């Protein structure tokens, strides 16, 4: 059996809205991926540590609190420090268009904003 694609879905920061994260987790499950769901209010440190232990190829971060500009790049940075720069990070949530270039420059591969279909996310993972 070839290596199955494993994706960690995490919610960094303090907002308690996990409907989007659960929706995308389910869509990824239905696309045949193994989704490790870590729950609400995770620190970037806990997310990066879990990603390494779980040997995932992707980390999907969801944030609706507005703290994405500090939290998302922090996860990328911690993965580098843990000798896991190959684990790719994508993000979703309420993210202003103006913030996206900065996040991508910080190493986040893609940002999915409200209105993105789950199929678009699945296709993106399969193509990258």
């Amino acid at each position: 059996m070839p290596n199955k694609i494993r994706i960690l879905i995490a919610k960094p920061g303090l907002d308690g809205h996990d409907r989007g994260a659960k929706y995308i987790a389910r869509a990824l499950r239905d696309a045949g991926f193994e989704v490790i769901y870590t729950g609400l209010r995770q620190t970037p440190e806990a997310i990066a540590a879990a990603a390494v232990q779980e040997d995932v190829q992707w980390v999907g971060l969801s944030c609706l609190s507005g703290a994405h500009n500090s939290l998302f790049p922090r996860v990328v940075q911690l993965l580098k420090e843990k000798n896991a720069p190959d684990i790719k990070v994508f993000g979703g949530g309420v993210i202003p268009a103006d913030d996206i270039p900065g996040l991508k420059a910080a190493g986040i591969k893609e940002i999915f904003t409200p209105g993105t279909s789950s199929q678009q996310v699945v296709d993106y993972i399969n193509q990258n």
Partner: protein
Amino acid sequence: MNDLTDKIIAGDIRAIARGISLAESGQPEAVELLKDLYPHTGRAYLIGITGPPGGGKSTLVDKLIKIYREQKKKVGVLAVDPTSPFSGGAILGDRVRMQKHATDEGVYIRSMGSRGHLGGLALATSDAAKILDAAGYDIVIFETVGIGQSEVEVAGRVDTTVLVTVPGLGDDVQVLKAGTMEIADIFAINKADREGTERCVIELEQLLSVKEMDENTFLPPIIQTIAKDNQGTAELTGAIEKHRDYLNSGGRLAEKRKKRIQDEVHTIITNQLDKWAALRLTHDMETRENLDDIYSKKTDPYTVAGDIIKELQI
């Protein structure tokens, strides 16, 4: 590969994680890795936590991790959740309850999809436990998928099996039934603040009172826990310790582990024979013709199978 072996033995988290993925993939390199690691295994104590879905297994495991960490033990957790038979995907969510330990370097938690395996574990769970054992983890906890009445595999893979149940699942005939109720070294009645706990205790006691026993039998203790409030969890680790002492006396642990080795070798043989037979039946032209001959009643399945088995010279 040697590099990976050395890193795993040195306890490198990334290497452990990679090793487990390799074992899950079933690639030939996995066998080489496990062979190299095997001399370094045997020190970890293996604990199985099993029981019905939603019974509180993950929450209990979270509390067990805390207790073992206070004892300065390194803890590995292998938490299995079901894989979808339709998409092959899975949501592995046991980690949610244990995520507070994510940054503790003495704790390694790995979520595993069952990937079509039906006994309550994943096919690679025992191999993953060997990797953690070789990496120096003192305790390795197997958390099964939520089980029903017949998934008993875990009992053959660990040293101590804890069956987590909850009050109100059924009457006293349920506990008399064969299967999962028979595999417990320890019963944990979780959510023991709920109605029906007392009755649950009495029914389990009655079950145990009709068990055939002699002076060598370990009578499974019944521990009441409320995992979310961390109640009864110290009693539970105490009971695990008592069972461990019991196994350690009179060579019982060695006996149990030798039985496990026999099962393991048996499994490896049957898996390889299974692959061989599948290949033989699908790729050999003469065999394909024989199968057609069975259909037209020129021969029968028993003769054809017997002839193929003869090739193995057994």
